[in-house]
């Protein structure tokens, strides 16, 4: 499925001002996505519209009801001796706007999750606020016995990382390794847009979620970064992809000023002839 099928239709909502009769324009968008993991592209679109980080923690799909066979001929039919299956495809259609307030964004994310539930798609999720960012976190998944079971996201696991000066990707790898060991689930480190950069970092009994957020800030304080913690059913592992949001558009330098002349209006380069 091509994620280009995410249709983003911008329309303009006009709200009339009260006293001043000023008009404020607010962009409204519609996410319309049909995907195996529809929350992923939907959150990408919403994050882009919000201009602020929205993280995503997937659920470990396991029940046959939540999976379907891979039909793309480029993918091996069997991987590791098991038939290749991916999360069941579904459609999400949600309208939202580019609200700048956090409560409004939370409302939009909750509407998205409501639509997800309404569509009967696998697992369940909730919205959390932490580290100055928004998180959509998996909370339930259908177990092998066919019943919904509660989940503790791997990113909630507390990790230790010994102090050291390392590249960002090495640090992310250590966090992922700690999660893997403590959580009994493999975490693969996917996209990391900071690889050659070095940071001094340590974590002591800190949740992986908080540690990653702090690492983001230390690696790139001027850019927002979010992650997509996707459960890859082909290799039965989480894939942790980091994503640097586009830098904020800088405001125009306001230091341009017309050089002042002398108080009498004469150029600073000239002296009146003395008579």
């Amino acid at each position, binding site marked *: *499925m*091509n*994620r280009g099928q995410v249709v983003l239709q911008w329309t303009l909502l006009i709200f009339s001002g009260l006293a001043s009769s000023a008009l404020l324009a607010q962009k409204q968008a519609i996410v319309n996505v049909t*995907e*195996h993991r529809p929350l992923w592209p939907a959150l990408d679109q919403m994050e882009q519209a919000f201009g602020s980080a929205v993280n995503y923690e997937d659920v470990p799909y396991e029940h046959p009801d939540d999976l379907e066979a*891979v039909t*793309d001929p*480029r*993918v091996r039919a069997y*991987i*590791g001796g098991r038939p290749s299956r*991916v999360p069941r*495809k579904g459609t999400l259609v949600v309208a939202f706007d580019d609200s700048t307030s956090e409560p409004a964004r939370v409302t939009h994310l909750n509407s998205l999750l409501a639509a997800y539930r309404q569509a009967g798609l696998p697992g369940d999720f909730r919205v959390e606020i932490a580290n100055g960012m928004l998180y959509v976190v998996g909370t339930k998944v259908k177990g092998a016995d066919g019943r919904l079971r509660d989940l503790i996201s791997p990113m909630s696991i507390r990790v230790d990382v010994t102090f050291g000066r390392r590249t960002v*990707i090495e640090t992310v*790898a250590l966090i*992922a390794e700690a999660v*893997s*060991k403590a959580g009994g689930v*493999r*975490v*693969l*480190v*996917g*996209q*990391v*847009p*900071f*690889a*050659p*950069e*070095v940071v*001094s970092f340590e974590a002591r009994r800190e949740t992986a979620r908080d540690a990653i957020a702090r690492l983001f800030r230390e690696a*790139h*304080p001027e*850019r927002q970064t979010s992650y997509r913690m*996707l*459960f*890859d059913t*082909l*290799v039965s*592992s989480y*894939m942790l*992809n*980091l994503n640097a949001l586009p830098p904020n558009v*800088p*405001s*125009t*330098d306001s*230091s*341009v*000023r*017309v*050089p002042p002349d002398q108080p009498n209006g*004469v*150029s*600073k*380069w*000239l*002296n009146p*002839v003395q008579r």
Partner: protein
Amino acid sequence: MNLLFLKAARLGIVLSVCAAFQANGQIGCQGTPSGPVVCNDPVPIVNLSGAWAATGEVWNVSASGGSAFGTVSVQNPAAPFSCPTIVYSVSGTLSPSFQTDNLPGFVNFSWNASNPNPAGACANFTPAPSMNYTGTVANKSNDRATGNWSRPLPGGGTLTGTFTLNKNPRDIPTNEITNAVGFSSGLLETVAQFRQQLVAGSGSSDIFKGRQVTETTGTGPNFDNCRVEGVTSVPRYAINNARWNVGYYGGLENWWVDDYIGWNTTQVNYYRTVLTPQSFPCGAQLPQAMVIAVDGSFGSTTQYKAHPIIVQLTMTTVSSTRDGVTQAKPWP
């Protein structure tokens, strides 16, 4: 199934870099033990040569190596009497900042204009015999100078004020030469590094030191056919809007270091594990447009180069191409 991938998987973790390994090249912006840092370009400016203009005046200076000389042309504002333009001789100094990671780079300068020509009166005004400009140029764009001017008054005393000069024309690279550096190491041994030299129309080898360049997504073919949409869990190969500080390393004043292009070892293994052999070769191509900062340190950018980036993968080889320069090798 790839043995290395399985071996790593048994260890409980598989490492991978990014599909689009366009690393953020903010050299000098690394974190410190004391905590978060402000990500500044620490590279000083060492060459201010060119034309610097404000309303009614243009400074044409050759300013590098710590000293400056040239002329400043001042439109005689005593119009409408058609007085001639006054040309001063300029001499002075420039003092680049010391390069310190996380602190913004700049250059201080002091330029003195003297010996006006013509020096005689016109329309009841005579040129000031001298003028001193003392100011600073912040890096990233290197094109805006601010500071204070002062000059003696005929009856004694000093007249002072502030100024802003803008470089006009700005220095925009006429070309960017991509150089193959080789493949990286460790997890990145399937990621190729490319080192770029900015070419100045003037031939200067240090005019871009202190500038900041950024990659953006341009126009042209843009695809990733290793990725199976909705199935593989790796994002589409994409431009990261990474930035690099030009001239960070001494001796490479007009260079920026490095652009990392390619999938890392585990990502390569992942695709070889998940995709059928018939799916190879697969690859990704992106239009990379390079822009350079202009209009002050926090101003805008202008594009100076555009070209494709190509990453290709077979069951036995990896290759990365930037602006027609290809690096390839068998792997593993």
